[in-house]
């Protein structure tokens, strides 16, 4: 029954500061499935994730995102989290002065008790600490971590490990992992890959955005999507991920010239905007 829960994205168009980035994405992710989302830099992969999570700067101009028939686009980011959606960010924000443990205790309480009103009881401290410590040991994270300020002065690798720790604590129905392997050395990617497989069990639907094969080692994709120029242009099985890792995106660009033209335009826009 629980496996029937589905995250359904239909014809999603997203603009940032009035510029269209995503130009019609379709994707259906069931609980228990692993999907890989691949594509060149700037093709719109992170945009898809951030739009699903509800980042206020990402304006949905067309299309729908539904979790079991509930329109996520009507919900604030916190309500989406409470509905069971999680995103591990490529560049998590630092929150100086806020301890990891305090932040996680609030987050975990809210996600487990979606009806909780502000000011109501949090998970009892003792219980929470025990659980957190257990998860940290599983992930080989120093317990000192809990007393540090959220992402403040973290190395790239520490940030990614902190995101995985949050994934472990919050146990969402659906998780989007945006380059959770970047900034990690080979051994750390291996550990991350195994940890993610362990955390998700058979219950979580996972969308993995990655450039590297290693993260998929323990998380073999059931489905691979290729994004180019703000569209998902091709969908296939695990062999598609292998092909792209091996050969890159030249074949894709050749097969989808229209999307490739849009990609060139998007990249130009981006660099033009900065210069």
């Amino acid at each position: 029954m629980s496996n029937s829960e589905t995250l359904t994205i239909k014809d999603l168009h997203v603009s940032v500061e009035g510029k269209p980035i995503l130009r019609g994405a379709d994707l259906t992710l069931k609980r228990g499935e692993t999907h890989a989302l691949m594509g060149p830099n700037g093709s719109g992969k992170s945009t898809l994730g951030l739009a699903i999570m509800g980042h206020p700067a990402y304006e949905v101009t067309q299309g729908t995102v539904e979790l079991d028939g509930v329109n996520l686009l009507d919900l604030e980011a916190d309500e989406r989290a409470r509905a069971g959606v999680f995103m591990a960010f490529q560049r998590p924000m630092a929150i100086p002065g806020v301890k990891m443990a305090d932040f996680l205790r609030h987050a975990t309480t809210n996600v487990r008790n979606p009806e909780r009103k502000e000011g109501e009881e949090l998970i009892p401290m003792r219980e929470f600490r025990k659980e957190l410590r257990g998860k940290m040991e599983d992930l080989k994270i120093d317990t000192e971590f809990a007393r540090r300020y959220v992402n403040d002065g973290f190395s790239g690798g520490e940030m990614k490990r902190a995101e995985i720790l949050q994934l472990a604590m919050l146990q969402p129905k659906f998780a989007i992992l945006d380059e959770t392997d970047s900034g990690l050395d080979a051994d750390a990617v291996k550990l991350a890959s195994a940890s993610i497989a362990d955390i998700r069990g058979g219950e979580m639907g996972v969308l993995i955005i990655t450039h590297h094969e290693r993260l998929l080692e323990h998380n073999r994709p059931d489905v691979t999507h290729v994004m180019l120029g703000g569209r998902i242009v091709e969908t296939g099985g695990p062999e598609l991920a292998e092909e792209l890792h091996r050969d890159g995106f030249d074949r894709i660009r050749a097969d989808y010239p229209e999307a490739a033209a849009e990609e060139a335009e998007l990249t130009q826009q981006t660099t033009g905007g900065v210069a």
Partner: protein
Amino acid sequence: MATDVTGKAFDPTVGEVNKYDFRTETEGVFKARKGIDREIVGQISEMKGEPAWMREFRLESLKIFESKPMPSWGGDIELDFQDVYYYLKPTDEQGKSWDDVPSEIKETFDRLGIPEAEKKYLAGVKAQFESEVVYGSLQEDLAKQGVIFTDTDTAVREYPDLVREHFATVIPPTDNKFAALNSAVWSGGSFIYVPPGVNIEFPLQAYFRINAESMGQFERTLILVDEGAKVHYVEGCTAPMYTTESLHSAVVEVKVMKEARCRYTTIQNWANNIYNLVTKRALAYQDATMEWVDGNLGSHLTMKYPAVYMMEPGARGEILSIAFSSANQHQDAGAKLVHCAPHTTGQIISKSISKNGGRSSYRGLVKVEEGAKQSKSNVVCDALILDEESRSDTYPYIEIDEQDVTIGHEASVSRIGEEQLFYLMSRGLSEAEASTMIVNGFIEPLVKELPMEYAVEMNRLIELQMEGSVG
């Protein structure tokens, strides 16, 4: 070298010390009227049964007050000095009724979980709250070590020589208009003397002091920390201070002698109609350390710049200040470090938060006098602005008359970032919870310096202040 602060600038002209206390004889007769003039000032002194030198000091200060212009900087002060009560007899204060206290103040007391008796004390309805037992044993313990901890009126009567030697030597009435006003009409405040080598382990808290004037409008505090001694004094509380009077102007003087340490912690949360104009200054001598921890919430306008004058080599001054301003509030707060001797070290950390159209200003001075070689000072001021209507300004002044020094200054202004809010919300925190968490994180460097119970109250207070600021 900074002669204006060493006590030479003002010299009371009159000699005879009158130790007699006429207070009991006059009690119940005095009826204050509004306004300030020689007669009122004379009456205040007479009511208190003060020695002649203090009476003359007050009258001299009144002249200075009248001759001084209003400060030309800081906030807008719209005050009719003749429309203020300058001295309310304790019995008048006690006559106020709990029913007169506005409901929002009562509600905040409830939310903060303040005990009934303490609420009335804080609201100025009842002058004393039930801490007599605590206070009694505390006094006994301190007395054994030779520590004096009393209100300044009592100190003038019981320790006339000590008070007279140091009173107004750190902040003379000529310093500024409001210091002069306080000098003319002061009442209450704490007097502390810590003998050489005595280390008071626990913080001395103002509210342990049984004081008939529960909240002086014009408190006068004098703290003397003798050689090698150590004290932490805590004043104020996070509950809103309710009072019917709109002008509060305190003077706090501290002397930290050789190798001594003093920390002075203040948390003030005034009602929104109050002008809170305070002069605080400490002199730190050889290898002594003075720390001000200063938290300002509420009030209509606060102007407060705790200062440390580092008088001798090795002296150290640290000021940690926080301001939270909301609608119709202007916090003009900051700090002053004056290096008068070589090898002195100073640090200022200032944090301000503005919301709902509030305005916070940092105004600070770092001054290095000629010859204060190898001195170091560092200033960090961070402002957090919660919405478009609110405002933050920074006025850092640096005056350096010596080449061989190290001075650092960093300032940052930030809005509560959309990115930070989104990050926390994506983990299930509501927008209000996320904002509160960011603000509490922002002031964490100050809060972690507070005694535990204050830290807890401070965080709760920020939560209350943040309510309704989002959405």
